[in-house]
């Protein structure tokens, strides 16, 4: 029935009810008056008084008011009932439309979606997920998600899934999955739980995968090119190095003081280029993962001291106040000395480079539970507030660092972060422009 008709019906029913109960009241009034008049009915206490008549009149009035209210109540009841019905049907329609829209978005999204149950089973894979895994919906449904990861990554993935079960989402985990045809794809794997959906069996979460295989391949080609170019550069660099050395050693005849000075500049420029090549090679190896981590018991204090020795000349030139605080109970640490040295070198040389003469330098190595902390603090330039979030980005150099020192690649802290994370540690810093910077690396023992 149309809404307007329903409204008219409610009014008619209410008016009819009003007339019906009004008529009943009129009849009752007449009958009561007749009975009183005939003396067949009497109220003993009020017998033959005016009050008897007034009471009947008031009762009649109350009856009319009750009739009006009852009719109104009936009208309101009918109207509310009608509106509730209308609202329910509209909500049902909206709900169905919303569900339809959700399903269309879910199924046709270019991002692969999977619902993952608590026991890691795959439910409701969307079309993009089927394309990614190379399976049909029937084949993928109820499979264990863990079966699609590489054996080496299983522990890590299990940790991630148990985190989701405890309500902690994860984002942007770069992992590899194995498709049905055996090919391996790189993906960014994210997952969150939505256990608040009542009555649904998919209580674990929504997993999304973004295929980044092509990006990884491009990165690899780029990195391999850098590695190849760096190796190729080493041969002419070696020739320059050795022949300037031969010239400078005067094995082939003496040099004028001026010639000697220029030769030193050639040598220094070449050394800088060799350093650059070595840095590029280290970055490409870290990025390609071809740098084997060689863990052995290492005296980290001795390692730090050897880096101090390398920088002795620069430190002396700047008359730094040095503070070294090494925990006495820090014995040998299982780590890769070659990589850890790179961390120390980069942190220390930055502190030395960007702290003015007479400044302060503090280095601390301490043991805390199952970790050891390395703190390098300087009273130097500091990092501008608006650039602090980019400081570990590849090739990034802060404006004030660039202005002070043109030499520099913007790779040092990028390397530091990569190595620290390779060790399973973390790095953070606090910095106040023109007051100094404190870097803190936390590494597992």
């Amino acid at each position, binding site marked *: 029935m149309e809404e307007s008709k329903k409204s008219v019906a409610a009014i008619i029913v209410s008016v009819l009810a009003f007339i019906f109960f009004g008529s009943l009241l009129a009849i009752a009034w007449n009958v009561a008056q007749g009975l009183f008049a005939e003396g067949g009915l009497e109220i003993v206490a009020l017998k033959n008084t005016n009050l008897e008549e007034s009471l009947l009149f008031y009762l009649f009035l109350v009856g009319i008011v009750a009739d009006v209210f009852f009719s109104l109540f009936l009208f309101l009841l009918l109207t509310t009932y009608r509106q509730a019905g209308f609202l329910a049907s509209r909500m049902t329609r909206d709900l169905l439309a919303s569900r339809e829209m959700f399903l269309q978005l879910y199924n046709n999204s270019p991002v692969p979606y999977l619902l993952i149950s608590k026991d890691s089973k795959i439910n409701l894979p969307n079309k993009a997920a089927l394309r990614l895994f190379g399976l049909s919906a029937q084949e993928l449904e109820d499979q264990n998600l863990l079966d699609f990861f590489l054996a080496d990554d299983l522990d890590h993935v299990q940790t991630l899934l148990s985190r989701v079960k405890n309500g902690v989402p994860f984002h942007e985990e770069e992992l590899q999955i194995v498709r049905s045809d055996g090919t391996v794809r790189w993906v960014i794997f994210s997952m969150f739980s939505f256990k608040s959906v009542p009555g649904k069996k998919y209580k674990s979460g929504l997993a999304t995968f973004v295929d980044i295989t092509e990006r990884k391949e491009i990165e690899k080609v780029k990195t391999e090119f850098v590695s190849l170019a760096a190796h190729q550069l080493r041969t002419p660099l070696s020739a320059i190095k050795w022949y300037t050395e*031969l010239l400078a050693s005067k094995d082939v005849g003496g040099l004028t003081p001026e010639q000697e000075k220029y030769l030193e500049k050639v040598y220094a420029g070449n050394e800088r280029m060799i350093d650059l090549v070595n840095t590029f090679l280290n970055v490409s190896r870290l990025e390609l993962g071809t740098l084997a981590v060689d863990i052995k018991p290492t005296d980290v204090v001795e390692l730090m001291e050897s880096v101090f020795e390398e920088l002795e000349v620069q430190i002396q030139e700047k008359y730094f106040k040095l503070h070294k605080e090494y925990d006495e109970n820090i014995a040998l640490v299982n780590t890769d000395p070659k990589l850890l040295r790179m961390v120390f070198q980069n942190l220390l040389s930055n502190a030395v480079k960007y702290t003015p003469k007479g400044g302060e330098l503090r280095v601390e190595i301490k043991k805390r539970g199952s970790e050891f902390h390395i703190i390098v603090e300087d009273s130097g330039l500091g990092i501008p507030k608006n650039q602090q979030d980019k400081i570990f980005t590849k090739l990034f150099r802060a404006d004030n660092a660039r202005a002070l020192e043109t030499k520099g690649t913007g790779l040092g802290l990028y390397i530091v972060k990569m190595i620290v994370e390779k060790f399973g540690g973390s790095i953070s810093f606090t910095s106040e422009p023109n007051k100094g910077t404190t870097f803190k690396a936390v590494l597992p023992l």
Partner: protein
Amino acid sequence: MEGGKKILIIEDEEDLAEALKIKLEGAGFTAGVALDGEEGLKFALADHPDLILLDIILPGMTGIEVLDRLREDTWGKNVSVIFLTNMDDDKSIAQAMVHQSSGYIVKSNTKLEEVVEKVKMTLEEE
């Protein structure tokens, strides 16, 4: 002076081999140069040098293959060999170590003087 101890340089970059030869001879060694692996192996087996400076990337036979072949020879199995290369990736270093070399020098990171020092030290250790 080193009493004319014989050093064989197997290095395909002529300029680098030349610089090494000059420096080694200046330090009192007798130095010979071979510009590829095969020639170097032949030279070594015929001339029995006291120490070989061996590049890894060589035309034809690689430095690792040269060392393999040397180790098959009665004289060659004990001769001191120092790898002299610009490859310092973990794989190359690991390969060199497996083949019992006496050292591993990255050319661009090492001064000629340091090469001579390393040669002297290796010969003294023998």
